[in-house]
């Protein structure tokens, strides 16, 4: 079953052990957005995100799934509070992992200030969860990708599992085109957009730690395997030296590719065989990464 096409709830159902999902703040509580209501805009009973506890391969996890089709998965006050609350809860429940199924353009413009605050709260809560030794995984494979504040949240996670269809960046393609012009970035050239923000480039650059096919079982397997790894080797604390090394690596990357216009240039520079990269299956692509 396609992860890209599935709704947030279908993704959860397909990812976790059958029948184990227990939702917090379920739709019947009608925790809807007061801001959208004031603007007389359509509401959703879950404000576009489902959060709860479940089991993955028998182990306790907490999980949040954003619904990309409701207002672009955007983070409003309630939406953000649900994710932040889930992360806070992780400190008390100490699950084996927290899974964030991110499918979002970032802050909800209708409630920009509240949304911005919510995202910063999510970031802080996420860091606390990691500091407590609990790994957080981002899964990115929906139609909205992970942009804006949720792009940053994604990169804070210990692991980022992506499909090629998933996208990860800060400013969305339309935003870049609007601000810098179509010569800078043609947001309607979808192939270019995906070569620049899609899962394959993110995996090649190390922003994503796993590239999987667009299927819910593929995401599930990757998450289960990573969770098992963290259960065996508990989360190492990053030392200052590690952080400086990361910084150094990013600075090098920035230098090397500051003039690159297209993902293809990155593949040309990083893969021994960079032909037909968009056509490769994730398995073939991962193989080429190993060969570099």
């Amino acid at each position: 079953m396609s992860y890209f096409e599935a709704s947030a709830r279908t993704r959860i159902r397909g990812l976790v052990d059958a029948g184990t999902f227990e939702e917090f703040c379920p739709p019947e509580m009608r925790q809807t957005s007061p801001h959208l209501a004031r603007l007389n805009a359509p509401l959703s009973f879950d404000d576009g995100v489902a959060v709860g506890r479940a089991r993955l391969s028998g182990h306790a996890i907490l999980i949040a799934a954003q619904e990309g089709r409701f207002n672009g998965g955007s983070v409003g006050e309630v939406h953000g509070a649900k994710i932040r609350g889930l992360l806070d809860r992780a400190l008390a429940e100490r699950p084996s992992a927290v899974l964030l199924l991110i499918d979002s353009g970032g802050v909800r413009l209708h409630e920009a200030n509240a949304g911005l605050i919510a995202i910063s709260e999510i970031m802080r809560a996420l860091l606390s969860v990691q500091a407590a030794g609990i790994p957080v995984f981002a899964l990115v494979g929906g139609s909205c990708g992970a942009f804006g504040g949720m792009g940053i949240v994604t990169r804070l996670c210990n692991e980022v599992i992506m499909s090629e269809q998933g996208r990860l960046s800060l400013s969305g393609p339309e935003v870049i085109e609007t601000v810098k012009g179509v010569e800078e970035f043609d947001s309607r050239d979808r192939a270019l957009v995906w070569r620049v923000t899609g899962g394959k480039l993110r995996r090649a650059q190390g922003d994503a730690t796993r590239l999987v096919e667009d299927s819910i079982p593929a995401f599930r397997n990757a998450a289960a395997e990573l969770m098992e790894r963290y259960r065996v080797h508990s989360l190492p604390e990053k030392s200052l030296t590690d952080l400086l090394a990361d910084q150094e690596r990013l600075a090098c990357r920035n230098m090397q590719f500051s003039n690159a216009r297209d993902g293809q240039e990155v593949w040309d520079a990083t893969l021994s065989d960079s032909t037909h990269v968009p056509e490769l299956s994730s398995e073939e692509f991962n193989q080429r990464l190993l060969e570099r």
Partner: protein
Amino acid sequence: MKQHDHLASNRLARLKRAAGISSNRLVATEHAVQLLGAVIEPGDRVCIEGNNQKQADFLARCIAKTDPSRVTGLHLVQSVLALPEHIDLIERGQVERIDFSFSGPQASRLALLVENKKIAIGAIHTYLELFARYFVDLTPRVALIAAQAADREGNLYTGPNTEDTPAIVEATAFKGGIVIAQVNEIVDRLPRVDIPADWVNFYIKAPTPHYIEPLFTRDPALITEIQVLMGMIAIKGLYAEYGITRLNHGIGFDTAAIELLLPTYAADLGLKGKICTHWALNPHPTLIPAIESGFVKSVHCFGSEVGMERYTSARPDIFFVGADGSMRSNRAFSQAAGHYACDLFIGSTLQIDSHGNSSTATLDRIAGFGGAPNMGADARGRRHASPAWLRAGREAQLGAGIPRGKKLVVQIVETFREHMQPTFVEHLDAWELAKTADMELPPVMIYGDDLTHIITEEGIANLLLCRTQEEREQAIRGVAGYTPFGMSRDARMVENLRDRGIIRRAEDLGIRKRDATRDLLAARNIKDLVRISGGLYDPPAQFRNW
């Protein structure tokens, strides 16, 4: 002595005026405007090639730069007015009259010009009808055409997107006219000759390749469950019922859904080899799964489709492919094929009235017809039988003591379009448009008396079985759902029509609505189509998300 070669001598005079800028038919790109100024005479009938696919866009830009005091009083006779330059030419006052088939993206600008009496419309035609008139009373004096390549003699390769070119060139070149071709490239040796050099007077290398609109690509990701449901109804309630083997599909997501249900739903019903084997159809990417699963035996194309070139080349058993290995399309022949050799046409529309007349015209747009009316009309000149055709004739009780057949002409529509616009209406907008644009006929795409079936999410109405105008009207209202038109039905009469099998709901056909999911589609996105084609389909960038 009476002179019999006015046209030929006039052509010679035109060629002489251009002699200085042409060498062995080749004209330099920068002299294109000058060439047009030299050969076009005031009052000329001019055809700027273009249809809903390829466009002689460079020559269109050039003619819109000619001197309006000399290139004037033109009569445009061409398939479409789709480029801004076509309308610019009119706004510059260089055109007096237009005869065309389709105006697509320029529909609103055109409506305004007509309203302000800046232009007279001769008539809006179907493609085939306009081509026919090229050989009777609308023969172009000058044709500006588009080809893929020319060799140094001026032979042309038009390749997969041959489309209208042969019809235009044949009419122009053999009636003393001037043919000017823009080409994407000039090569020493063409893959094959589609248009011989002695039918071509000038060729020019265009600065950019001619534009082709990928008009027939439908992303399976955008097909809805309702469209899947209607596709199931069409396959089970119509294709299987009549044994439709030869057909044409219109453009749209409704018919794309049918194409994608063939290898899954239709195959499960045991219909492989029994339906949908022979087509008059552009190479729709959504037909790939049906071709790969062996459902389809033959497809003749009006034009090509961007990205399908390698695929069609690699499937010469299915498509019409030259010795060089590339496909050749031909709009005129495929229109004739769709009209005479197909048992069924199915397409979508914007409005249907109580008589079953359907129209895509709306008040502020003059869009025109393209080819649909030729497909969506009974071919009364047809004299060969087929089971589907004969059954339709029997159901309609045609013929006075003689067996007669009838083409199945089907509209497949949702009862509401987007923004809750009802598809079924008491009064077509086409009437108002005819009034404001001073047209003699309301622009109706499919006439009610040609329409045999309507499919909506509410089921099928079989109009062949209706015996009175009242029954017909109630049958249409009976599938019009919750539109005001549908809600004003006579519920008792509709139930009676349902009992007689004139209206058949999904459940009457044994179709469960909950089974209508996107999981039934043989491909759910463009990438699936690429995979199923074995990597031969190369979709345009705007359709990719990889």
